[in-house]
């Protein structure tokens, strides 16, 4: 199963883990990206995310396909939250199950790296002093040339 979603609500890790759990797969790896309270010494109040939703879903499904080309995995769930994401809350959760652990561990690492390089989602950091900044993933610079 490939489950991708972009939601405006809190993402529950337990829900994604339940989604990918199966009697056939003994390993589940999850990656959770949460809002930090600081960047370069500035206090971050919250993040605001926006997405090119249909294209982002498409790119997330492409990541599922790439994962399945590289590893024998069971179920994949990738959910990104948009809108305001307060400090400590999750903006992204990826959960992948596999029969043995190596596949789920390596493929989750690959999936988050690839998501940061290819999925059209944007993050604005809002600082305590009222200023803000649109962020840029370093992975994007490297992948831009290859479209």
């Amino acid at each position, binding site marked *: 199963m490939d489950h991708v979603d972009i939601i405006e609500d809190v993402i529950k890790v337990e829900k994604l883990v339940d989604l990918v759990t199966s009697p056939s797969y003994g390993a589940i790896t999850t990656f959770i*990206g949460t809002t930090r309270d600081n960047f370069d010494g500035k206090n971050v109040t919250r993040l605001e*995310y*926006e*997405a*090119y939703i*249909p*294209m*982002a879903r*498409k790119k997330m499904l492409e990541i599922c396909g790439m994962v399945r080309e590289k590893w024998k995995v069971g179920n994949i769930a990738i959910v*990104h939250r948009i809108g305001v994401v307060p400090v400590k809350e999750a*903006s*992204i959760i990826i959960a992948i199950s596999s029969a043995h652990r190596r596949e789920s561990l390596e493929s989750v690492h690959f999936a*988050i790296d690839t*998501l*940061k*390089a*290819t*999925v*059209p*989602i*944007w*993050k*604005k950091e809002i600082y305590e002093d009222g200023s803000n900044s*649109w*962020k*840029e*993933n370093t992975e*994007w*610079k490297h992948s*831009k*040339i*290859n*479209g």
Partner: protein
Amino acid sequence: MELNTFANVRVLFFAKSRELVGEKETVINYPSRISTRRILNELLERYNSLSVISENLILSLNEEYLDINDDLIINLKTGDELAVIPPISGG
């Protein structure tokens, strides 16, 4: 004989480009055959505010990235969806 045809294309703006342009989307009439570089240049002429991030924009056409560096000629038709893509920062 080559007809000089045009297409009405939906253009979407995201993130910083949306803030700079001041709108989420518009419709622009483009030649049916056009280079990606020319699309971008025309957008920068139309929206001067975009110039501050002009070096960092790419485009997508119907939800696929277009390689600006290749400066390829693409075919547009009415109903196509272009998007202005500033550096992404999801995750």
